[in-house]
């Protein structure tokens, strides 16, 4: 593999990948007879051109931070957790059960409880694939895919048969009590000067930022994180160092699942205020793109999550104001994953062409 300076590896590779994805997307837009520059303008205006747009961009980014971190933690243990989607949905169930269980007097009490509920359910959904990987060698990618589908089916069953209020027709739970309403940015003193209207971004954003910092601490400042990273780099070496593969696999996946589950306080508790079918809307999958783009570092995940928040809100605006279908964002998402995750050697080789002559001259 071409050796690049560290900064190029960390900054340039994702940026070039993004650029490539952007160029191809632009070509796609051209091919369907639209103007890429117009599309970009609509996206920028819609996503970051107003506090309203930011309210949505940050809302999506909050979810993506959690799922991006979830994928990141697993990646460091060399586990590719595609199950973020299912874990997030189960996390949503956990959040909903907590919110519906008690007449919560105030959100400050409901939030920690709901976080525990979401994290526990998310972790539980990751536990079986983790156990099968650790103990029986079943490939975690396949099992987590299967668990995504099982989660979707389970959730439909629970929503339709158990959580749906008798009089209601949609497969959704009852609305949570007023005591579980999380303050949105519009209701937070100080920020309310910027966000003058109801936006979905809520206090969960700060929980997400805290999670970034905690994951960074975990991975680079604790023994457990050290073991996770060592295990992820080389299993035989980890064994030599006395690191227990089963333990690390289980813990890394449980943390990953818990983070994915935690996402649900943003959408289920913070935004919709009830559990809907497919509440996570693919955020679990976007976590893969976010983690790859963010180079598996919490800071990178944060930046990539903002970028994807922009892409999601901007994409929604595209669907609203232009005749470019909203699916464009799925294409960009796929391309980013492709370039940063699967074709990174190609991107490196391209970059290497620029770096080699300089290195020789030096």
């Amino acid at each position, binding site marked *: 593999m071409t050796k690049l300076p560290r900064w190029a590896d960390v900054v340039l590779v994702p940026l070039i990948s993004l650029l490539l994805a952007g160029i191809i997307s632009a070509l796609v837009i051209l091919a369907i007879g639209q103007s890429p520059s117009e599309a970009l303008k609509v996206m920028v205006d819609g996503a970051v051109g107003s506090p309203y747009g930011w309210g949505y961009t940050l809302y999506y980014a909050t979810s993506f931070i959690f799922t991006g971190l979830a994928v990141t933690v697993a990646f460091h243990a060399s586990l590719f957790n595609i199950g973020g989607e299912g874990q997030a949905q189960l996390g949503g169930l956990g959040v909903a059960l907590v919110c519906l269980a008690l007449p919560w007097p105030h959100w400050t009490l409901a939030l920690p409880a709901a976080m525990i509920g979401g994290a526990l359910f998310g972790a539980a959904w990751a536990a079986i694939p983790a156990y099968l990987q650790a103990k029986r060698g079943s490939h975690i990618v396949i099992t987590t895919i299967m668990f995504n589908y099982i989660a979707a089916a389970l959730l439909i069953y629970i929503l339709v048969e158990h959580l749906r209020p008798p009089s209601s027709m949609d497969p959704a739970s009852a609305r949570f009590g007023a005591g579980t309403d999380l303050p949105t940015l519009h209701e937070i003193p100080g920020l309310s000067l910027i966000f003058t209207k109801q936006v979905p971004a809520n206090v969960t954003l700060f929980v997400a930022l805290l999670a970034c910092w905690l994951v960074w601490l975990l991975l680079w400042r604790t023994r457990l994180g*050290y*073991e996770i990273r*060592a295990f992820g*780099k080389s299993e*035989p*070496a980890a064994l030599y160092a*006395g*690191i227990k593969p089963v333990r690390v696999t289980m813990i890394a996946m449980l943390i990953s699942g818990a983070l994915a589950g935690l996402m649900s306080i943003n959408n289920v508790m913070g935004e919709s205020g009830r559990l809907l079918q497919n509440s996570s809307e693919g955020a679990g999958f976007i976590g893969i793109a976010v983690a790859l783009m963010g180079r598996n570092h919490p800071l990178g995940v944060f930046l990539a999550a903002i970028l994807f928040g922009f892409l999601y809100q901007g994409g929604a605006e595209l669907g609203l104001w232009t005749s470019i279908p909203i699916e464009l964002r799925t294409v960009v998402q796929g391309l980013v994953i492709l370039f940063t995750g699967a074709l990174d050697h190609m991107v490196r080789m391209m970059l290497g062409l620029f770096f080699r002559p300089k290195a020789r001259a030096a």
Partner: protein
Amino acid sequence: MEITDTVSVMRRGEMTATVKTKDTSPEELAELMVGRKVLLDVAKGPAQLGKVVLEVENLRVVDEDKVERVKGISFQIRAGEILGIAGVAGNGQSELLEVLGGFGRATGTVRLNGEELDLTGTKSDGQSRREKGIAHVPEDRQHLGMIMDFAAWENVAFGYHNDPAYQKNSLLMDNDAILEDTKGKMERFDVRPPIPTLAAKSFSGGNQQKIILAREIERNPELLLVGQPTRGVDIGAIEFIHKRIVELRDAGKAVLLVSVELDEIMSLSDRIAVMFDGRIMGERDPDKTNERELGLLMAGVTGKDAA
């Protein structure tokens, strides 16, 4: 040496000498490379034997493919003694070393200072072995001994990351302490370049090995397991590594040395055991044997057969 006309020697990042191949000798080149005359033989005094440190009785190892790799061997090592295991690669030495180092399962009895080691249960891992005072320099350092993508300082904590000296509190590791410790180790073991934040893969083989040795030897272990200490290591480092191993033995510690280099075994060991097909074919005193005899044992021919 056979295909070149001239040889240039690089040392510490500088071209230090260029000589005509036909005018030089291996000894001279070696000297140029390390900057001083190489000790061709390891200078070591007679062993000061102490109590028995390691006792191995009837040890058997069966690998994942159900092949018996070690077929019931027994031996002892005393304090202040280097036991060299000679043998052609693949005759069970690696498995012996790994089982003693804490991975893989085995049957039989192994005692360290009279205390029996767990060979199958939860205490049969690298962590527990280290706690008991067994240090292990594995044969395949790039694959087992360190994490190539980790920085030098992270590799210095490798296996010892639970050491209380490396912890800030019950939750967080003290990275500064590890960095500081690494600086000292790099200095004392002459690791070049002495930059603790450099990734392990950026060091030469010899310097990688020095990092591992610094990590394991400076723990002052009761028993040092060391496999192929100088494989792929530059000539200056070989001398340095040998010296350090002998120093440890002189400090009254037991050393189990596995190497496929017969020269290395002969010059370092106080006693030589030869392994063939998972068994110990015989033990020899390095001063009273020769390469031919050892070679025959390594081929599975015992003295009786030869006679």
